C-alpha cells in the first residue's frame, strides 16, 4: 500500500510521504489539494510567468493588496533585508534578469545594475504594499520554503501529523522516528559529505554549483553584482522551511554572526577548499579527509 506521491511544481520535483495511517482515497484527495495549492502559489509568485501576481500587480504604481500567504514571506524578507544590510533583497529580480536568468532562460549576461533600495521602491504595511517605483521582484530565495510550510499545514489539517515533504531536496519532516539525511556533495551528487539525523524540522540547502552559467549562479550579491564563489554550499536547519530556505541563501551573502542574534537556526557552510564552518549544535556525522 502506497503512502507517497510525487509531482512537479514551481520548477522542482515534490515527493511527499505520509507516515500517519492513510488510505488510498485519502492519499489521492490530499494529492489533489496540494497540487492545486502549489499551482496557486506559482500563479502568485513565479517570476517566470508573465501573468503572475508579482509580474503584474507589483509592477504598477500605487497601493496593492497582498495575498494572505504573503505576510510571512514579506515580513521575513524585510527582517533579512535589514539583518544583511540590504544584501538579501527581493529586488534582486532585475539583476537576475540582466545576468540572463530571465523568463526565457536566455543565460546571456548583459550589463548589471545595482538594484534600488527597498525603501525607495515600496512601503509595506501588510496587507497592503504601496508601490512607489516599478521593479522586478524575485522571491526565489525563500518562496519554495514558504510553499513547503503551506503544504505541511494542509497535510496537518487533513489529519496526518507525521510526514516528510521533499521539494527538490529541501526537506520538512514531522516524524516520530529520526530520519538519516545525507548532505549532498555539491561537486558530486552521487556522494554525501555527511549525515544529519532529524525528526522534526526543516533542512534546506543552497549551492552555486548546479544553477550556474558563465561567471554567475542563482545567487548574486546586489552590491558587488557578482556571484559569491568562495562558498560551495550551505545547509540550514530550522523549525520552518521558510526560514531554513531563506537563511541558506543569506549565508552566501553575510557571515553567520550577522544572523545568529535574530534567528534560531543551525547551519553548515562548505567552502571551495572543502573546509567547513558550522554552528555548534549542527549535529551531524561528517566525513573528514
Amino acid at each position, binding site marked *: 500500500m502506497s503512502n507517497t506521491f510525487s509531482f512537479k511544481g514551481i*520548477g522542482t520535483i515534490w515527493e511527499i510521504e505520509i507516515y500517519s495511517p492513510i488510505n488510498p482515497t485519502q492519499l489521492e484527495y490530499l494529492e489533489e489539494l496540494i497540487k492545486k495549492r502549489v499551482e496557486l502559489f506559482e500563479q502568485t509568485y513565479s517570476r517566470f510567468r508573465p501573468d503572475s501576481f508579482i509580474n503584474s500587480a507589483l509592477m504598477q504604481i500605487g497601493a496593492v493588496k497582498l495575498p494572505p500567504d504573503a505576510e510571512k514571506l514579506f515580513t521575513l524578507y524585510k527582517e533579512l533585508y535589514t539583518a544583511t544590510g540590504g544584501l538579501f533583497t527581493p529586488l534582486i529580480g532585475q539583476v537576475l534578469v540582466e545576468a540572463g536568468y530571465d523568463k526565457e532562460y536566455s*543565460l546571456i549576461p548583459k550589463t548589471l545594475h545595482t538594484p534600488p533600495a527597498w525603501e525607495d521602491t515600496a512601503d509595506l504595511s501588510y496587507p497592503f504594499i504601496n508601490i512607489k517605483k516599478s521593479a522586478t521582484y524575485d522571491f526565489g530565495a525563500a518562496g519554495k520554503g514558504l510553499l513547503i510550510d503551506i503544504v505541511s499545514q494542509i497535510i496537518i489539517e487533513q489529519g496526518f501529523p507525521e510526514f516528510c515533504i521533499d521539494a527538490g*531536496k529541501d526537506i520538512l519532516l514531522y516524524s516520530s522516528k529520526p530520519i538519516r*539525511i545525507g548532505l549532498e556533495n555539491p561537486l558530486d551528487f552521487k556522494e554525501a*559529505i555527511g549525515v544529519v539525523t532529524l525528526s522534526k524540522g526543516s*533542512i534546506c*540547502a543552497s549551492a552555486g554549483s548546479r544553477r550556474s552559467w558563465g561567471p554567475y549562479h542563482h545567487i548574486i550579491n546586489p552590491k558587488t553584482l557578482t556571484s559569491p564563489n568562495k562558498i560551495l554550499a550551505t545547509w540550514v536547519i530550522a523549525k520552518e522551511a521558510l526560514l531554513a530556505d531563506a537563511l541558506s541563501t543569506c549565508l552566501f551573502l553575510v557571515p553567520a554572526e550577522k544572523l545568529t542574534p535574530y534567528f534560531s537556526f543551525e547551519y553548515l557552510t562548505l567552502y571551495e577548499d572543502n573546509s567547513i564552518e558550522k554552528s555548534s549544535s549542527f549535529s551531524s556525522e*561528517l566525513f*573528514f*579527509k
Partner: protein
Amino acid sequence: MNSKTTGLLVIALIVAIGLGIFAFSDKTNKETPPASPKTVEVRQVTTSYKDGVYEQLGDYTSPAGAEQIDVKLTLKNGVITESEVTPKAEKPISKMKQEAFAKEYKSSVIGKNINDLQLGKIAGASLTPKGFNDALEKIKAQAKTV
C-alpha cells in the same frame, strides 16, 4: 576526570607537543611541518572510548615561556569524527604560530558514496528547474556547432 578523558588528554598533549616542536623550530627551518596531529589521534584511539565531545587545554613551553592550546575532539564509535584547534597563546610569536597551525588544521570534508550510507533522504541543491537545464543544454549544443 575519568580514565577515558585522561586518555584523550594524553592525545591532546601529543598534539601540543607537535606544536611545541613547531614553535621551537628555527625560522630558517620553517618548512618542517608539525607532525600531522590527525594521524596521531587515529592511531591512539583504538580502544573503546565513550562517544562525546572532549575538550582539553594542552600545555607546552615555547622559547617565550609557557603556552596553552585548546584541542576539541568529537568521538563516535571510537573514531574521531571532528576536531578543532583553538589558539590560546598571548605572546605575539606563539600566537602567530598557533594561528597558522589552527588554520592548517582546519578540517576538510570528503564525499562518500550515497549508496553506502543507508539514508532516508538527501538534502542538497542539485535538482534545478527544467527550463534552466534545457537552456543549458541548448547553450552547450550551440557551443559545439560553432
